[in-house]
């Protein structure tokens, strides 16, 4: 039997809506055949069958809200035991999960919470943390040691989002509850990985240190800094409360995390893009012929990639835990896209291998996809440097927040005609404002300046963009 679950697909997605079902009970499915489509705040994901077999049951109806960890389709694959797409070795645990799922199909899974009261004689101490996981049966294996935020580390944590019932001692559970530690995230050091009280203490300490020192770490990624903020002070001002969407919450958490982890420094400059404006006008017709919607952003990306090649520390991540800098060996440029639901940052992969036209095509495809929410998770991941174009709404300068754990982000403002002095003459030129935020832990101001100068040099001599 195989339980096809809503697996943790990362990117802070915890819930979704079952949009489409491609299979019925009794139907035979092949491995790789699409089973259902999930609509989430960021993407619509088509979930293929991990195994071949017969559909035994479908646990939700189209339109139902589902959480990460929920079993959506059960497939009889002819194998003994119960397996699922969320863990390699949870067969033992799965059998109970299935029962629970059946008994409360699609129902609201509320955490069972029993207060361990010592003095009342109530002798029941219930597990609390993973009890909410009739559906969310899982943990991300995170050591109480902070995991370095290498690319591999991050990918590991996201992809092996192995969900299982946590083996923990009674004292560890109580302590976790008191210290506000999510026991799912604690790696146990006891027999068979049992979480002991010392593990909870170590984890809590690590969390505290992480909060105090804000190291670049995977743990910090998961630290819900935004959620732990204190309640607002009371006020007499009338308010209307608006629920934050999942996407909004994700954006909020990412921003807080980046802002409190990376010592941002921002450098601003202006570029004379007179020739770039001329070039774009010149090639506009060619672009139309090729069916490309050419924007300045494509040129900016090209210039930034060339700049990153010259200054590899801008295309990097800091791993404080190991005192290392990870120089990224690929140039994946995140582009901030304004969507009706909020900010999304699709990624132009291997931008260094693309021509300006190709970049322009990617920009068009990704921004449309972001707005229509048809992007795949992979298209939102793994950027190595980002660019935000607030010029599209007419702004000039900004202090962009770096997309954690990158080392920099370039903010581009709107090109405006300005009087400038050239050879002691006041002339009118097209001026592009640039604002570069960078991680001052690994990049000093002078180097950031040199990087900006390189980008400027390229943008003011745009033919180089084509030739270089």
């Amino acid at each position, binding site marked *: 039997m195989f339980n096809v679950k809503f697996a943790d697909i990362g990117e802070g997605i915890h819930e979704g809506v079952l949009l489409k079902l491609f299979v019925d009970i009794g139907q035979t499915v092949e491995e790789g055949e699409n089973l259902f489509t999930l609509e989430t705040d960021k993407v619509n994901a088509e979930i293929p069958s991990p195994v071949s077999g017969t559909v035994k049951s479908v646990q939700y109806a189209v339109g139902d809200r589902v959480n990460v960890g929920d079993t959506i389709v059960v497939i009889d694959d002819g194998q003994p035991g119960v397996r699922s797409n969320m863990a390699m070795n949870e067969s033992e645990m799965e059998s109970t999960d299935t029962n629970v799922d059946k008994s409360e199909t699609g129902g609201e899974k509320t955490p069972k919470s029993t207060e361990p009261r*010592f003095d009342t*004689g109530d*002798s*029941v*101490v219930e597990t609390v943390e993973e009890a909410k996981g009739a559906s969310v049966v899982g943990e991300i294996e995170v050591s109480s040691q902070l995991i370095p935020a290498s690319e591999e580390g991050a990918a590991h944590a996201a992809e092996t989002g192995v969900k299982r019932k946590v083996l923990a*001692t009674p*004292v560890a559970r109580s302590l976790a509850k008191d210290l506000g530690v999510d026991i799912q995230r604690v790696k146990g050091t006891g027999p068979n990985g049992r979480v002991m*009280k010392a593990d909870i203490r170590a984890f809590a300490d690590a969390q505290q240190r992480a909060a105090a020192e804000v190291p670049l770490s995977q743990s910090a990624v998961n630290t819900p800094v935004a959620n732990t903020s204190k309640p607002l002070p009371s006020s007499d001002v009338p308010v209307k409360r608006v629920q934050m969407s999942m996407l909004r919450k994700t954006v909020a958490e990412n921003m807080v995390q980046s802002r409190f982890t990376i010592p941002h420094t921002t450098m601003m400059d202006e570029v004379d893009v007179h020739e770039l404006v001329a070039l774009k006008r010149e090639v506009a017709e060619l672009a139309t012929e090729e069916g490309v919607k050419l924007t300045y952003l494509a040129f900016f990306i090209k210039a930034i990639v060339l700049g990153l090649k010259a200054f590899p520390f801008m295309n990097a991540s800091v791993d404080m835990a190991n005192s290392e800098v990870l120089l990224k060996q690929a140039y994946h440029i995140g582009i901030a896209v304004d969507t009706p639901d909020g900010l999304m940052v699709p990624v132009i992969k291997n931008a260094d291998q693309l021509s300006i036209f190709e970049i322009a095509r990617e920009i068009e495809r990704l921004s449309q996809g972001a707005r229509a929410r048809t992007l795949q998770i992979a298209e939102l991941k793994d950027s190595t440097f980002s660019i935000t174009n607030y010029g599209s709404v007419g702004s000039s300068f900004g202090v962009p927040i770096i997309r954690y754990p990158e080392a920099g982000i370039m903010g581009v403002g709107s090109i405006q005609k300005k009087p400038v002095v050239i050879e002691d003459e006041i002339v009118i030129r097209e001026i592009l404002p640039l604002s570069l935020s960078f991680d001052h832990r690994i990049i000093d101001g002078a180097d950031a300046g040199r990087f900006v100068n390189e980008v400027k040099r390229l943008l003011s001599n745009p033919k180089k963009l084509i030739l270089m």
Partner: protein
Amino acid sequence: MKTYDIVVIGGGPGGYVAAIKAAQMNASVALIEADRIGGVCLNDGCIPTKTLLRSAKLYQDMLRAASFGISLENGNAIRVDWQQLMARKTSVVNKIVGGVEQLLKFNKVDVYKGYATIADERTVKVGAETLQHKHLIIATGSSPQYPAIEGLQSALNDGIVIDSTRAINLEQHPKRMIILGGGVIAVEFATLFNSLGTEVTLLQRSEQILKNQDEDVKVLIQRHLSESGVAIKTGVAITRIDGHRVYYKDAQGDHETTGDYILASLGRSPNTKGLEVLQLKMSKQGIAVDEHMKTNVPNVYAVGDVCGGMMLAHVASAQGIVAVENIMGKDSTINYRQIPSCIYSFPEVGAIGYTEDEARAAGFDVGTSSFPLSANGKAVAEGETVGFVKIIHDKQYGEVIGVHIVASHATDMIAEAAATMALEGTVYDLAKTVHPHPTLSEIVMEAAHGAVDKPIHLIKR
């Protein structure tokens, strides 16, 4: 010259367990033993004393058999057959030692008989053999130590002052026995000889016997021993020994007492002879080791009594496994707060973790709960109602941090507490665990109920 992954010196419960574990983990292993496999535990300690205590218990039971409805046809003709007692002991020991030898053979451990001498950091000599090793585990054990008391040495030479090894090999049933010391071994031998009809006087320097036990345990065992006929003199200073006579003084003045034998149970010191070349760092108690049983010399480990500390067979075995696991690349340690200890008195004592006083001193928010054996059905049925269980817990979460049991089978009952503590269990867990009825183990559940709220089978006003 043969080379081994691991050479173990000493075939006691530390050494032979280490050797078997190492073999099971596919290391090539040699075990060197100067005497018989099994060490003090199998040959002169744990096993023979328990065998003799069984006879002593049987004798005591038979003395009161009439009250259980069992009478001997010819009246009171019960007597201790000392030779048979010793013969049975020897046969039990041989059987167990033979079993361990088979285990070593089965696991392909090369056993060398002889006294090991360290030649250098990589070489051990035993007889004509020279063994090279990559890792060395020292498990040479301990020997009785004797403080400087006037006349002790000559009485020792005369065979009047004896150690525990001699005490279990006496040819004759002694009439009078003086025991010096008030530790676990002293109490066990006091129990043994007293139960077999020997008149026993126990001389203890401090005010109480069994200093490391919980206060309630100490008080009960001391009182019960006294009531059973052991003359316990505490707060005494032994001034001199003259043949069979021991002179001592206490607050009341000078005293003397005599015995066929004077059993000196005054502690043990580590056996480090032959290891000098290694220049091992020593602690106050023995060879200094870290939590992985590593000494200051690379690739040299030490386990068991030779390290001092808790001189218990099961600690030695656990340390042997830890040493081997670390050698084989697995990070492993022991939590010494969770080592059960046993006293084979009548009734027995099984204890683990903090005593109440220790727990308070350590700063816990201490809760305690006791339950008496006299309120336990099985204990009453068996006529063994002396004893209790006492659970020490940390009030914050109810975690069990100490359990002290006095009961006829306390040593078999303490493992429940050990398992609970290893899993960081709480009094809630113990109370919720359904215990079988009728058993002595129910007192643990009842005491846990008492910690949480109230025990069922006890009137608590």
